[in-house]
């Protein structure tokens, strides 16, 4: 139980859109970038790495790399990355990555999307803290969460 809670994040979301639409949003570089908040320098293809740049204001200098693992059309998409690789002067290539997986399922009225990110326990500790400085869009919300936790 403990292992599961500290190593893995899982999410489920129902999307009122056809599976093919969701699939495009996940696997076409430009579309992925527009909701994820990054600009990717190339296409997403199995076993290929793509570099990208954060588009959130104030974080444009940050680059990262997605190591695409597997693409099974309209059902499964996965990549590895260094979730907290935000310091341009540090070589992260030898460090462990987390695995991000998207699973799609057609359901009545839309698409069920399952997301998981796993491998957090392998990540160097300091990186996890840095992750919070990297994120922009969700900061307001997260600050509320943190404040709640700190106050608790």
């Amino acid at each position: 139980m403990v292992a599961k809670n500290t190593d893995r994040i899982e999410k489920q979301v129902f999307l009122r859109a056809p599976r093919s639409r969701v699939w495009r949003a996940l696997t076409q570089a430009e579309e992925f970038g527009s909701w994820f908040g990054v600009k990717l320098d190339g296409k997403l293809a199995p076993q290929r790495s793509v570099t990208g740049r954060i588009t959130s204001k104030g974080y444009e200098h940050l680059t990262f790399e997605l190591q695409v693992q597997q693409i099974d059309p309209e059902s499964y998409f996965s990549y590895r990355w260094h979730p907290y690789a935000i310091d341009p002067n540090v070589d992260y290539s030898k460090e462990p990555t987390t695995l991000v997986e998207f699973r799609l399922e057609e359901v009545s009225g839309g698409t069920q999307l399952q997301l998981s990110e796993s491998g957090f326990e392998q990540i160097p500790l300091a990186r996890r803290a840095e992750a919070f400085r990297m994120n922009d869009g969700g900061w307001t919300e997260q600050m509320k969460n943190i404040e709640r936790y700190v106050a608790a």
Partner: protein
Amino acid sequence: MSRRSSAALRVEQAAPLFAALGDETRLALVSRLGSSGPLSITRLTEGANVTRQAVTKHLQVLAGAGLVRDEWRGRERLWVFEAARLAEARRCLDVISSQWDDALSRLKDFVEK
């Protein structure tokens, strides 16, 4: 800004917890202390597939991260699980988890447009 950095600091302080838990034997020790209450090193070694010396070392790592502490009851030294620190580790993952909530909600807006 100062709020933000204090939050980041808070997260940094919790980071050693994740390292302490990133080991099967230590997870098992934490789990046993959590479910069976304070235990002596003898009892803890009985349930582990490692030597008493190894268990002692693991307990020291866990103690360093604040997950367990030792206390004397009479002439017996017992190890106690500190639930509060584990809760702190979970909260850090919760924050990362909320980043995904934000991203998925942007995805939802994007595909439902």
